[in-house]
C-alpha cells in the first residue's frame, strides 16, 4: 500500500484515531503490529527478513554492551555491521541477477540498525532493553519506505513520551499540514515533470536542444519535488503518532557550493554517513594530511552513489560528486581570499555558486536518472551539441503534458531554494482565510489537478 492512495489515507485515519484510544502500555505493540501489517501488505516473506534483521541487531546490541573485553565488543560490532551490509549488497547486486525483488526499505532500516549498533558500541547507555520498542524503530511504518533515517536515541526518547502522552492536537495539525504540502509537491509538481520526462526519454535524439535541456533540468527538479514531497508526507504521518522525524532537505539549491548543498540534500543519509563513515575514516587517516582528506571525501561520496544501487551509473554519480567536493574543499582558502573580503564579491560568489551548484547536480543527474552509461553519454552529447538535435519541439508534445512544464519547473526551483517570501504571504493568507478553508482548497487542488500517471516515489526503489 503506497502513501499516495485513498485506501492508505482511510486506513491511516482509522489507525491514528485508534492509536489514542489504546492504553499506554499497549501502544508499542499496537504500532508495531500496524507497521508489520503495512509491510506485509507489500510482501509477507520480506516481513520475515525485517523481523529477523531486527532480532539479530537486538541480540548483537546486547552482546556489544555486555561483552567484558573491548576486543569482543569490536567483534560483535563488526559482525553485526558486516551481516547487515552483506544483506543490502546481496540484494542490490545479486538480487537483480536472480530476478529477486529488492526488499522494500532495506537500505533504510539496515542503516538504522547499523546506527544502533555503533551507538551502543560508543555508549552502552544507548542500549534498548524493550524488545517491542526496539523492533518498532526499524519497522516504524511512516519511515520504512524511504526514510528519513532517524537516529536511535532520538526515536526512543520521543517514543517514551509518545507511548504515554494524550493526543497533541497542535502536533497532529502540523502533521496534517506536512502531508498536504508533501502531496502537493508530489502530485501537482513532481508527477507533471515526470510526465514530461517520460515523453522525451523515449527518443531524446528526436527533440530539439531546448526540450532536451529543459528535460535534463527536470531530472533534478522532479527528484527534488518527489523526494521532498515524500519526506514531508512521511514526517507528517509520523507526527500523527507523536514522532517528529529528522528533515531531509533544507533549501538545497540556496547553497553557495556543492559541499554546502550536500549538507542540505537527503540530510538524514548524508549525516548518517558523516557520523558513521566519514568521521571514523578521518580519525583513522588524520596523519595523512590533505591526501587523507581527499581519500575520505572520495570514499564517502562513492558510498553515497553505490547506496542507491551497485551499478556503473551510480558509481559515476558518486565519483563525479567526489571530484566536485574535493575541488571545493581544496580551494576553500583561495576562494575565501578572492571573494570573502567585500560584501559585494561575497554576494556575487554566493549567487554564481548557487547557479553552478544546480548545474553540477543536474549534470550528475545524467548518471543518476539513466540506466546505462551509453544513455547518459547520449544525453550529454545532445546537451553539448556533439550530436545534432532533432526537429521535434514543445509544440509536438501533447499540450496537457507540455503546457505546465515551465511553471512546474519554476515552482520546484522556488521551493528548492527555500521558498523565499512565502512566510509573509502565508501569514496574510492565514489572517484572511481560516485553516479549514486553506486545507479544503489544498485538497481540492490535489483531487482536481493530479495527473493520470501519478504513482510511486523515485526513492521507493532504493
Amino acid at each position, binding site marked *: 500500500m503506497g502513501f499516495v492512495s485513498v485506501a492508505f489515507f482511510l486506513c491511516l485515519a482509522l489507525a491514528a484515531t485508534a492509536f489514542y484510544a489504546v492504553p499506554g502500555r499497549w501502544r508499542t505493540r499496537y504500532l508495531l503490529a500496524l507497521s508489520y501489517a503495512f509491510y506485509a501488505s507489500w510482501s509477507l516473506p520480506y516481513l520475515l527478513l525485517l523481523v529477523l534483521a531486527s532480532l539479530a541487531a537486538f541480540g548483537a546490541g546486547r552482546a556489544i554492551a555486555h561483552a567484558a573485553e573491548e576486543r569482543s565488543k569490536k567483534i560483535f560490532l563488526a559482525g553485526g555491521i558486516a551481516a547487515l551490509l552483506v544483506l543490502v549488497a546481496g540484494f542490490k547486486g545479486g538480487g537483480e541477477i536472480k530476478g529477486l525483488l529488492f526488499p522494500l526499505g532495506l537500505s533504510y532500516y539496515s542503516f538504522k540498525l547499523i546506527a544502533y549498533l555503533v551507538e551502543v558500541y*560508543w*555508549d552502552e547507555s544507548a542500549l534498548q532493553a524493550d524488545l517491542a520498542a526496539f523492533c518498532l524503530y526499524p519497522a516504524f511504518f511512516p519511515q520504512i519506505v524511504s526514510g528519513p533515517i532517524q537516529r536511535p536515541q532520538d526515536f526512543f526518547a520521543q517514543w517514551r513520551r509518545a507511548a504515554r502522552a494524550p493526543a497533541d492536537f497542535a502536533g497532529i495539525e502540523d502533521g496534517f499540514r506536512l502531508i498536504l504540502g508533501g502531496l502537493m509537491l508530489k502530485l501537482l509538481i513532481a508527477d507533471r515533470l515526470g510526465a514530461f520526462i517520460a515523453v522525451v526519454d523515449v527518443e531524446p535524439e528526436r527533440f530539439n536542444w531546448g526540450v532536451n535541456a529543459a528535460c535534463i533540468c527536470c531530472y533534478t527538479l522532479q527528484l527534488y519535488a518527489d523526494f521532498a514531497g515524500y519526506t514531508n508526507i512521511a514526517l507528517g504521518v509520523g507526527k500523527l503518532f507523536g514522532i517528529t522525524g529528522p528533515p531531509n532537505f533544507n533549501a538545497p539549491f540556496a547553497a553557495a557550493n556543492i559541499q554546502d548543498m550536500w549538507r542540505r540534500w537527503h540530510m538524514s543519509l548524508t549525516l548518517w554517513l*558523516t*557520523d558513521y563513515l566519514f*568521521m571514523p575514516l*578521518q580519525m583513522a587517516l*588524520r596523519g595523512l594530511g590533505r591526501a587523507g582528506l581527499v581519500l575520505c571525501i572520495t570514499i564517502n561520496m562513492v558510498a553515497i552513489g553505490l547506496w542507491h544501487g551497485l551499478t556503473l551509473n551510480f558509481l559515476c554519480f558518486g565519483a563525479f560528486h567526489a571530484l566536485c567536493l574535493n575541488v571545493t574543499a581544496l580551494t576553500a582558502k583561495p576562494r575565501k581570499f578572492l571573494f570573502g573580503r567585500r560584501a559585494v564579491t561575497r554576494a556575487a560568489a554566493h549567487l554564481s555558486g548557487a547557479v553552478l551548484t544546480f548545474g553540477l547536480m543536474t549534470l550528475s543527474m545524467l548518471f543518476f536518472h539513466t540506466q546505462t552509461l551509453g544513455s547518459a553519454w547520449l544525453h550529454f552529447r545532445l546537451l553539448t551539441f556533439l550530436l545534432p538535435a532533432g526537429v521535434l519541439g514543445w509544440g509536438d508534445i501533447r499540450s496537457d503534458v507540455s503546457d505546465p512544464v515551465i511553471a512546474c519547473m519554476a515552482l520546484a526551483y522556488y521551493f528548492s531554494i527555500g521558498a523565499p517570501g512565502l512566510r509573509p504571504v502565508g501569514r496574510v493568507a492565514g489572517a484572511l482565510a481560516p485553516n479549514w478553508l486553506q486545507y479544503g482548497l489544498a485538497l481540492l487542488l490535489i483531487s482536481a489537478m493530479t495527473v493520470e500517471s501519478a504513482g510511486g516515489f523515485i526513492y521507493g526503489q532504493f
Partner: protein
Amino acid sequence: MQQDEILARLTEIFRKTFDDDRLTVTHDMTAADVEAWDSLSHINLILAVERAFEIRLTTREVRAMKNVGDFVGLIAKKAA
C-alpha cells in the same frame, strides 16, 4: 592542568584553525556557534589539539563531546 589554562590555549588553537582572531572559546560553545567549524575542519581542530597537548584521542571520545566544555574535560583527563 587547570581548566582555565586549557581554555586559553584552546582559544589560540581555535583562532588559528578557523582563521578568525576574534574567536573566544567558552564552555558551552558548539560547532553551530563557529561558522567555519564543519565536518571537514573538525579533524584539523582535533589534530591541532592532539599536537598542542601531546595526547591521542579516539573516535569514541571525539564523538561523545557535545560542546567545548566536554572537550576541556577530556583534555584535562588525558593530559593529566
